[in-house]
């Protein structure tokens, strides 16, 4: 066999090269296949953007929001709007109530990503630009409705939302309207008196 080379023989070096190339081909094919499976699994509708814009108190706010983040968390810890309180974080107390498209919602129990196209109003956005208080806020100052007032911003937002739809409620109707808010000081009687005064202020179109 010396000095003779069969045209069909494969040298050891070529064979090893071939194995490496083949392995690489298998590995890359595997990689491609895995990648395509992943692409197939990622739904088209997935939330891809974390940096989103939400409309809070009439302003467009750019904010970095996790997918599992609640609106209360975004408002308080990302946007610094700490007027919205977190009481129970379980939709059981009402302290975190904000208006979403004029309707009262517990902000602890909605994902920020679900309100991207909606208008959010918090207690900070109620007063006029010149500092004039909202009629309901003025009603509370007039009647000294709250004791510790931790629940106050939630009560105000519930009442404002309710009064937008029912501007002329009886005391019982208003009580039903804000029944999704709790006050641990048990100050309900004074709170209702204040909110009724606020309703009256709203109807008169004045805050004084």
């Amino acid at each position, binding site marked *: 066999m010396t000095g003779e080379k069969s045209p069909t023989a494969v040298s050891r070096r070529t064979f090893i090269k071939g194995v490496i190339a083949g392995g690489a081909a298998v590995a890359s094919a595997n990689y491609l296949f895995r990648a395509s499976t992943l692409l197939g*699994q990622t*739904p*088209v*509708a*997935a*939330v891809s953007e974390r940096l989103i814009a939400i409309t809070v108190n009439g302003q467009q706010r750019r904010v970095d929001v*996790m*997918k*599992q*983040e*609640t609106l209360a*968390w975004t408002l308080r810890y990302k946007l610094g709007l700490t007027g919205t309180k*977190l009481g*129970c*974080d*379980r*939709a*059981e107390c*009402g302290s975190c*109530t904000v208006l979403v498209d004029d*309707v*009262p*919602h*517990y902000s602890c*129990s*909605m*994902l920020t*990503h*679900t309100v991207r196209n909606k208008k959010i109003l918090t207690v900070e956005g109620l007063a006029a630009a010149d500092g004039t208080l909202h009629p309901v806020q003025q009603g509370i100052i007039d009647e000294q409705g709250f004791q510790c007032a931790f629940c106050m911003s939630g009560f105000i937002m*519930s009442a404002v939302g*309710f009064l937008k739809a029912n501007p002329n409620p009886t005391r019982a109707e208003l009580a*039903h*309207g*804000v*029944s*999704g808010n709790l006050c641990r000081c048990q100050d309900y009687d004074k709170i209702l008196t204040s909110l009724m005064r606020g309703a009256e202020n709203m109807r008169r179109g004045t805050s004084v």
Partner: protein
Amino acid sequence: MAVIRDVMPAFELVQPTSAAEAQKILEQNGSDALILAGGMDSFDWLKDRIKRPKIVVDLSGIDELKGVRTVADGIEIGAMTTLTEIVNNETIKQKYGLLAQAAELVASPQIRNQGTIGGNVSQDARCWYYRAGWPCYRAGGNICYADDPDGRNREHAILLADRCVAVNPSDSAPALIALDAKVVMRTPKGERVVDAEDYFIGPEIDITRLHILQPGDLLTAIRIPATWANTKFYFEKIRDRNVWDFPLLNIASAMVVSGGTIERIRIAVNAVAARPLRLKAVEDAVRGKAPNAETGVMAGKLAVRWAVPLQFNGYKIPLMRNLVKRAIGGVEEAVWAA
């Protein structure tokens, strides 16, 4: 239960814009996916880290699932219609007031503003052992902590319990059964329509679920036929607090009276068993009789005939007896001694 003041564990959030797309995503991901409607039930599970879905499918962007439509025979309510929209809907108020009454008594105003009819009928059991993540029958284990000498079971079942004694907590469910509603689902095999009565299941069929919705299925609508529109309705919910609370017991009935006797009637109760119960035996017994206190007393006795109380929920038996009596015989004026 400890309240964890932190964000929920991470999940993938998908926001489909059509029911078809949502159903496809649910089908692809099976039990890894959790459906988010209003979220009023879901967030508790996520915040307590007891359900850990990989993917949360938010239905709030699907317009075709929202709103009340008039169809040939009655109405169709999209699954994502909020309870407040149902309470304020003119057609529902005028013709199907029973459902409006039931929806108005759910939880609190803010929860009704966000909670949906689809979510209300599909919500999970409220048994605190189960919700706290204890490995009970319903959670796939082999023990019931509520039906135990030390168990707290004041809110639990008096009828048809099988290992698990949790009850269905929905207020709208008995009203939908009394109105003979149909539940419309989009499944991998196509559209499926079942009677509201058959949408709910007990532990003898599947101990881990309160309804027939399988992973991959999507509840799309509820249809109410005109059969029971504008009949004589009765709805009553008994609860500890007037806001937020789930029912200790609720009852819904629709009745047609002609010539002084009951011509036809449908009556259902909830929070007494793992599924809302239609009281067929009572319906058969009172047909042709006068809708008075005497018939009501007879019906009430019949309704609780096979009730088996646990240690702390014996009060539910007279409660159910009296609610059935009131639904059929009317509410007597309370007379207060001076």
